[in-house]
């Protein structure tokens, strides 16, 4: 993983003809310096064995010429003998805004089922394609696509894809708001695959009170197979509060965070889930 990160960070800028020349009058992180930091970050992430964070909201934007280091995690709470308590999931990721409309990321996923040890689960390449300029149309539209390679021979690889939509609404009772929707379908591929088509949705609405602190509400849901969705009680749906914010470290980039608590809405869902996201972005 560490070697892969180094290769990606060295080769991608060259492929796109980025000079990486230092800037005048400010912090001038060379690509090699940034690359070293990121490689160390992902290397550490990989050794810590990350996991598929199921509760990650994706935005339909690409930050061109930005490198992002991201950590996502979640853990569940339920009755101790329910089999749904302390289900953990973590991902650690490096993302690069390779073009003005394409963001590509390399992700390490790990997790632990209740009562089990943390294990490395998958390596994932994910892409976000920004389809509309931010703020130009009624809503902003992007497309997400990822390929996940399972770490275990007993698990199947998978592809996940779908639209990402965001709508900014200004001056709603005196406050600006932003609303984001993800609609993602998944399909297993290769050996051990099943014919099921899981569907994941995520919705987040938040108040833009202050860039450092934007409270909101979010919903995450999962249907294991859209062809056979079953009873509502067998599906997983969660809702809860979230806080999103960022802190600029210009010219050293910025830190973003998200913290949320989700209440389970169905029998198949855990009573509670804490999710978090921490991200460091730096332009180059």
């Amino acid at each position, binding site marked *: 993983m560490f070697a892969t990160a180094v290769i990606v960070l060295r080769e991608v800028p060259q492929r796109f003809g980025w000079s990486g*020349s230092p*800037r*005048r*009058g*400010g*912090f001038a992180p060379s690509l090699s310096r940034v690359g070293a930091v990121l490689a160390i970050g992902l290397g550490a992430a990989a050794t810590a064995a990350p996991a598929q964070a199921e509760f990650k909201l994706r935005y339909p934007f690409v*930050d*061109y*010429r*930005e490198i992002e280091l991201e950590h996502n995690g979640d853990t569940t709470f339920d009755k101790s003998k329910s089999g749904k308590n302390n289900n953990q999931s973590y991902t650690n990721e490096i993302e690069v*805004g390779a073009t003005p409309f394409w963001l590509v990321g390399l992700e390490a996923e790990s997790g632990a089922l209740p009562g089990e040890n943390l294990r490395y689960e998958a390596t994932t390449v994910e892409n976000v394609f920004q389809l509309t*300029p*931010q*703020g*130009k*149309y*009624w*809503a902003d*539209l992007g497309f997400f696509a990822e390929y996940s390679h399972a770490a275990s021979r007993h698990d199947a690889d998978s592809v996940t894809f779908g*639209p990402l*939509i965001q709508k*900014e609404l*200004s*001056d709603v009772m*005196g406050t*600006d708001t*932003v609303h984001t*929707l993800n*609609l993602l379908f998944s399909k297993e591929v290769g050996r051990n695959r099943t014919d099921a088509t899981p*569907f994941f949705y995520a919705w987040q609405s938040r108040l*833009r009170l202050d*860039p450092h602190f934007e409270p909101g509400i979010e919903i995450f849901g999962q*249907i294991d197979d*859209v*062809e056979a*969705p079953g009873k509502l009680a067998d599906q997983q749906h969660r809702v809860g509060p979230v806080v999103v914010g*960022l802190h*600029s470290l*210009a*010219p050293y*980039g910025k830190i973003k965070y998200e913290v949320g608590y989700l209440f389970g809405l169905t029998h198949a869902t855990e009573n509670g889930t804490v999710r978090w996201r921490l991200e460091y972005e730096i*332009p180059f």
Partner: protein
Amino acid sequence: MRRLLPRLILLVLLALCGPLPAQAEEGTYTLTIKDHRFAPTEFEIPAGRKITLIVKNLDSTPEEFESLELHREKVVTGGQEITVYVGPLRPGRYEFFGDFNPQTARGHIVAK
């Protein structure tokens, strides 16, 4: 559910891709970057209306137009220009800065 779900998704996509309100009447403003400074450093726009902001980088080095209050960030490489869509904004003063040279590249948009 099997039939409903694709229809709902189609509805959302159609709503997005349908006759979108073209902002043809929106105002266009130009901001230049030279010697790691924005010019003008402050300008007024009408509140409640979406505007188009053209950011021209006359320097040879890249800069990132960024505003935490406007929720916009976009890199403009040396000698190039970008388009940023802003608003509609409530009346107020909104700061923007260059992420690569925040000490010198700073300015405000005033919505009235």
